[in-house]
């Protein structure tokens, strides 16, 4: 059973073994509006937890996507380059950004679980 964890910056990471799949939350895509451009990290790039890992641009704003967990990028969702709308349509599924080989699973403890994340987005607006 995969675990999903969240950041306060509205990224999610789904952990299966030592691989984490990363995306932005449904709340994030709603707030951003239609995405028009996504810059994904290079495969093989090593990131620390909290590092900038991707850049997204919507009709409203440009923002960074931070690595919810440190490690090495092993796969990216190249389809997003041609069709950023996938993130608006299915942020938690087909709109994933990249997969990362997790360097230190203990870092997951610093992230929010589903209930805490829902509290966070519930109270901000």
């Amino acid at each position: 059973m995969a675990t999903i964890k969240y950041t306060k910056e509205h990224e999610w990471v789904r952990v299966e073994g030592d691989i984490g799949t990363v995306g932005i939350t449904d709340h994030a895509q709603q707030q951003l509006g239609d995405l028009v451009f996504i810059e994904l990290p290079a495969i093989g790039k090593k990131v620390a937890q909290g590092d900038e890992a991707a850049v997204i641009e919507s009709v409203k704003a440009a923002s960074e996507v931070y690595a919810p967990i440190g490690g090495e990028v092993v796969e990216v969702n190249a389809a997003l380059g041609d069709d950023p709308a996938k993130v608006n349509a299915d942020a938690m599924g087909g709109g994933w950004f990249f997969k990362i080989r997790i360097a230190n699973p203990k870092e997951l403890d610093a992230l929010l679980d589903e209930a805490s994340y829902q509290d966070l987005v519930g109270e901000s607006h």
Partner: protein
Amino acid sequence: MSAPAVTITGHRGLQHEEPLIFERDSPGMTGVDLPEPAPVNDRLGGLGRQGRIGLPGLSEPEVVRHYLRLSQKNYAIDAGMYPLGSCTMKHNPRLNEKMARLPGFAGVHPLQPVSTVQGALELIGATGHWLSVLTGMPAVAMSPAAGAHGELTGLMIIRAALEDRGDARKRVLVPESAHGTNPASAAACGYVVESIPANERGRVDLGALKAALGPDVAAFMLTNPNTCGLFESDIIEIAQAVHAAGAFFYCDGANFNAIVGRVRPADLGIDCMHINLHKTFSTPHGGGGPGSGPVVLSAALAPYAPVPYVVSDKNGFRLVESVEESDAKPFGRIKGFHGQVGMFVRALAYMMSLGSDGLRQVAEDAVLNANYLLASLKDTLSVPFEGPCMHEALFDDRFLKDTGVSTLDFAKAMIDEGFHPMTMYFPLVVHGALLMEPTETESKATLDTFIAMVRGLAERAKGGDADYFHGAPRLTPRRRLDETAAARNPILRWSPPAN
């Protein structure tokens, strides 16, 4: 709301539907009658162009009408109120334009011998002197070509000063309410940018700032008044903390219009500030003319200002053009030639015509007008931070909660009412921001019309007429644009239709 009238021509009254100039092409049509060129023996070896080069053929009246019709679709400060927050869209006095068109200024060329441009050099020096006196800062770099260019210049000066003392630093701190250009300029200058949160009063969180300061911080960049339209009331303590950490205190002078003539930034402990001549000093914005962003400097930073700069001695005025001939330590050059001299003419005309008392009244009236908006709208819209405000009034979108109307929809409806919308979704520290800056040049009558319009729209939104807002604007040459399609599939170039 009835649908816009459908006409035979597609024109709407005296507003013409105007195609691209290339679509008006009548091959062979021309506005000038030139003699046939004499035959030449070209040496292109058969590589000369065979077909048309594709310039459209039009007569002179067709060209004149084309561009006049396009200009009629434009909205400008000369056409009406333009309350774009943080942009200071004030009237550009015609006297400025008259001065800039004097032949001695309009015809001047940057490569003319210095002996023939003594007046222009004196003017650069005089404009800089006014800026020095108004800010209390001893030096000014005149060449930056825009506000963000001034930010970059200021940061490069700070970097040169730090490196000169053997203390290169890595980080620049920027409040989260800052103009986006601040972190961008710091990043372009090679610094790591760190965001400082706002407190519940919409000001910089002093505790968070102090915690983030350290021996690797090069500068703290603050806008004062900030983009919430609020004066940073802790600024003296902020300056002390920044200086205690060995960092420089950069001020974004975009909002100088609120304090010009009343507050000297030097007295607040600021080391470096750019001034947008196209905001506070009434030179044209954007498409109306080049920007200009002189940077005023404290004594500690003055030696590092870029070349060229104007000096005077008994022989008159001259330019110090290179690092080698300077007796200071300029970091180099930031722009070709000497800055936007045409803008200096306009800014100096503005400063001299208003005088120091007039400039003081500019700030007072700008703040008064913004507070009139705030006071007149605060019970209708929602106010995130307690007033009074400075030169601009910030609202958030709580008043639209559960109406189905967004800040964007609200702004689009304002266009049908004949107003340029306010700044929206900025600053980022409040949700669905509406940032209104009336400036001092709007009359009470105009403000009252604007206020009545905003109140009327807000009541309409709260009354449940969301469809009205979703359908706006209705009276513009084009309705709501598909921003998503435009960004995802931009068509950047006209192509002739396939035959």
